[in-house]
């Protein structure tokens, strides 16, 4: 669908869009600042003395606690700590992990790619599958296919991701590796490595897809159902278009809009799914890193993963807003 040509003509329009984009970006910056403050509040203020939380259930003497406190700067005034924390974040410094004895930034940089690979692949497949099922279901509303696929989607939605992961892992037996990302004895050339990673990724990917595709399907279905009685579809049919042409060229593009932004809005849900799925399959990503940090609890590391995960979700939301601008001529023109 092309935009009406009059959208280009008004000279004031460009300024409106710019102001809108600037507003969105400002909101996003405020959101990121909120995450940073929340990170400080959660991991420095709530625990009272973070060293006590971190050494809970361990045998430590006063001298060790004092050393730990000095190492992380917990003995300084709270305002100074906040200043150091924000200043560090701006330089990409998120402190040092207690457990790994390495910088948090380094650990996160190392673990971010496996998560991106897993989340990206499963989101792509889940969106394609969900949209296709949603469109088919809505087009033949209340058909056996519609009822069955909606039922399956609801069951998938109700399942905890980690449970499904364990079931799949047990059901497939030795067909797929039970954890990790690659075997150590795989030849170092690119294709063997890629094949090995793909082999390891099958089960975590399947689990994530099964748990998240339902929302795309349900939203696509209800969004298309709202378009079903629209007059322009009657017109399209009256022109003599075939049924699937009406669907593909007229109904679906209009119904797709809310769904496209939803893909970005729900990335937060995929991220939370990834935490437990990575835990079950020992997939070496940010989710597993969070789980490992919980065992300590390794507060500096937890703080780092929290800021990165929450921050990236906020960035995704801004992208969704901006994308909506580009895609929807009605919003673009207003």
């Amino acid at each position: 669908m092309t935009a009406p040509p009059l959208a280009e003509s008004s000279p004031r329009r460009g300024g409106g869009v710019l102001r809108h984009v600037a507003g969105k970006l400002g909101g996003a910056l405020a959101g990121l600042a909120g995450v940073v403050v929340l990170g400080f509040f959660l991991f420095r203020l709530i625990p009272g003395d973070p060293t006590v939380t971190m050494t809970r259930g361990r045998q430590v003497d006063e001298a060790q606690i004092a050393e730990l406190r000095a190492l992380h700067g917990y003995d300084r005034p709270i305002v100074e700590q906040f200043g150091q924390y924000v200043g560090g974040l701006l330089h990409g410094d998120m402190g040092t992990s207690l457990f790994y004895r390495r910088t948090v930034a380094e650990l996160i940089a190392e673990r971010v790619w496996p998560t991106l690979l897993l989340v990206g692949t499963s989101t792509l497949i889940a969106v394609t599958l969900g949209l296709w099922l949603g469109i088919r279901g809505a087009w033949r509303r209340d058909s056996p296919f519609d009822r069955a696929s909606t039922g399956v989607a609801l069951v998938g939605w109700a399942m905890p991701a980690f449970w499904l992961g364990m079931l799949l892992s047990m059901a497939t037996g030795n067909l797929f590796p039970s954890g990790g990302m690659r075997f150590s004895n795989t030849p170092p050339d690119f294709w063997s490595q890629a094949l090995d990673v793909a082999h390891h990724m099958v089960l975590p990917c399947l689990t994530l897809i099964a748990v998240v595709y339902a929302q795309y399907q349900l939203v696509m279905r209800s969004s298309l159902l709202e378009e079903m009685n629209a007059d322009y579809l009657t017109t399209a049919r009256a022109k003599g278009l075939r049924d699937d042409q009406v669907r593909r060229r007229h109904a679906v593009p209009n119904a797709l809009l809310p769904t496209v932004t939803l893909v970005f809005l729900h990335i937060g849900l995929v991220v939370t799914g990834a935490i437990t799925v990575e835990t079950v399959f020992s997939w070496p990503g940010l989710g597993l890193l969070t789980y490992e940090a919980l065992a300590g609890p390794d507060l500096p590391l937890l703080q780092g993963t929290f800021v990165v995960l929450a921050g990236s979700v906020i960035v995704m939301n801004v992208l969704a807003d901006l994308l909506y601008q580009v895609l929807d001529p009605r919003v673009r023109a207003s």
Partner: protein
Amino acid sequence: MTSIVWQRRRAAVGSTWRDFTRDRGGLIGLVVLGAVVVLALLAPLVTDPAALDVTKAAGERWQPPSGEYWFGTDHTGRSVLLLTWWGSRISLLVGLTATVLSVMIGTLVGITAAHFGGWPSAGLMWVTSFFLVLPSLVLAIALSSVLPRGIWTIVLAIAVTSWASTARLVRAQTLSVEARPYIERARVLGGGHAHVIGRHVLPAVLPLVFVNTTLTVANAIVAEATLSFLGLGDPAAVSWGSMLRAANLHGAVSQRAWWFLLPPGLGVVVVVLTFTLVGRALETVLNPRLRGDR
């Protein structure tokens, strides 16, 4: 006058109930849910909690289902049937209390933001949209990792992170109710904030809140299972999430102990599904726009 109001309300409840029973999925969900709740309540009367104690475990470890242990035994020799049964109590308790708390926060924030307006309202809406965007489970994990372990920590963590969608819904509904002439009439007649909110806004908003509650419970129960699975639950309490954690830690997958894996997970699925079905049915009844032309 009050009796007329009550008659009308009773009639409204009656017609809502009749519409609800027409939705087969919702009715099935309600019946199954009732059965699960009754079973959970009966657990202390019918069974002996002493059998949950690891030191008093009577059976062999990893025993498949048999006549004596219908669902087999876990890694310490406890009956999986008994664990699942008692686990339902914690899962339902946490799910329900967290939801009540979350819906209360959401309703309060939503009505305040819509009713009073001005900069406090703008601030509240900013906080709401911030919490709406934030991945709630990531925040819940962070919150329960710094607070002392226990089921009330989990309740708090889930409630504090999941109220935002309720707040947005309640705010929209409050705004639309307060734009109606009868609110203006009440104000002109001298009704204060408490009167307008208590007598007019709340009754109009509550049905929507109720629907929202049933759908929130589903999320809260999955969240509880997830937090317990990650080891953030009460270590002493048996819940479906903590059973699955034990199954994962003690290698139920490599032991092929399907009898330890299936019951707690199915419990979560069944309870979540019934709440979703009931919620969807209620939504259809209370929101006529969703009603199909069947």
